[in-house]
């Protein structure tokens, strides 16, 4: 039996798909900014001389990196209300994505920081810079340039991972796909299209990061 494909029935649902794509982009944009900020802070803490802080952040990183995103999401959305913290679907989705990306980017940025030659830090100190100044002006820039490709990949992974946020009814692209297939009974076509949209988003995200990298780092991004 040959299956006859019918993508035309999807046309009626264009607004639903557009909304889904917009939500996925929104979730990704917000969690990228906050998650990378958390990662910079985390990397500073992990490489700092304050031992308890470094250990604490290390535990956070290992805990998040060794558990599935879906479980983190469920814990935040279903579990936290027991503590009186009740979040909307999109808030829980963003929080889970930020915490997840924060852990990975902490580790990625730390690797960049540790690759900074000691002499540079000493040079900064000899110019009378304070610790935070050295971190901000001497260490962070070159570190980010070095790890930019790895960070890009991680952001793409987090964007793709956001598809499971449909399970807490955050209305992103996968949610839109589920919604449509429950009405037009064309699951294969719907998921095929949604997958193609994700692929386009991933390619677009890489392109944007490539552009940002070239703008931000004068010497260009090192190729890993």
């Amino acid at each position: 039996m040959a299956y006859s494909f019918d993508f035309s029935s999807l046309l009626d649902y264009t607004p639903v798909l557009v909304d889904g794509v917009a939500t996925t982009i929104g979730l990704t944009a917000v969690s990228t900014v906050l998650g990378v900020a958390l990662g910079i802070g985390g990397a500073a803490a992990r490489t700092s001389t304050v031992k308890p802080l470094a250990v604490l952040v290390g535990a956070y990183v290992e805990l998040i990196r060794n558990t599935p995103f879906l479980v983190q999401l469920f814990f935040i959305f279903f579990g936290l209300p027991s503590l009186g913290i009740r979040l909307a679907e999109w808030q829980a989705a963003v929080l889970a994505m930020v915490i997840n990306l924060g852990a990975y980017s902490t580790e990625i940025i730390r690797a960049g920081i540790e690759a900074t030659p000691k002499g540079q830090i000493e040079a900064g100190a000899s110019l009378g810079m304070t610790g935070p100044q050295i971190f901000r002006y001497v260490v962070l820039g070159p570190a980010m340039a070095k790890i930019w490709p790895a960070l890009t990949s991680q952001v793409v992974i987090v964007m793709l991972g956001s598809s499971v946020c449909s399970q807490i009814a955050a209305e992103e692209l996968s949610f839109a796909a589920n919604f449509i297939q429950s009405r037009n009974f064309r699951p294969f076509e719907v998921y095929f299209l949604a997958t193609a949209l994700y692929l386009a988003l991933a390619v677009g995200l890489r392109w944007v990061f490539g552009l940002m990298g070239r703008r931000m780092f004068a010497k260009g991004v090192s190729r890993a």
Partner: protein
Amino acid sequence: MLNFTLWDILSNLLLAARWTVLLSLIAFVSGGAAGLLLLVARVSPLPPLRIAARLFIEIFQGTPLLMQLFIVFFALPLIGIETTAWTAAAVGLTLFTAAYLAEIWRGCVEAVPKGQWEASASLALTFGEQMRHVILPQALRIAVPPTVGFSVQVVKGTAVTSIIGFVEVTKAGTMITNATFQPFLVYGLVGLIYFALCYPLSLSAKALERKLNVAR
């Protein structure tokens, strides 16, 4: 109302964790085998093979695992294969694992100095012989730590199969939550079970990496 002790909850989660482990093993082994074929195609001298392998990898690395599982789940029946959650989960995770491992291993193959290719070519070895006797044995050594590291991603990936109805530890957690109304405890335990599975793998990947760096 029924009461559930902590032990009731934990023992049922641990029983479900068997399926997480089994599915991870299946995905890792079959994904590794498929990944090896994909790798050979990716670095082969034949352009059509190279392009096809590259396309496969780009598609699977650029789309969510959840969508891949849905497509496998709904597409297999179209070609006459009846899908259960088991087959869809195993096939989906295998393809996902193959794409990532092939790309990881390609990095390792490319880390083998070019001179090795040229030297073996000058000995009139064919591509297959070069791979088998010269390149792969050297690439394999470099490949061990990142491969072990990636196994963590496979174990975590199995959580997503709960969404297509495969009953592993995450799905069991959802079902137990629905019966006990204790999401904080249950998902906390589910997280700890994953951690207990994944952390040793992460640690050994790190240890292997250190060992390899010292040896070099």
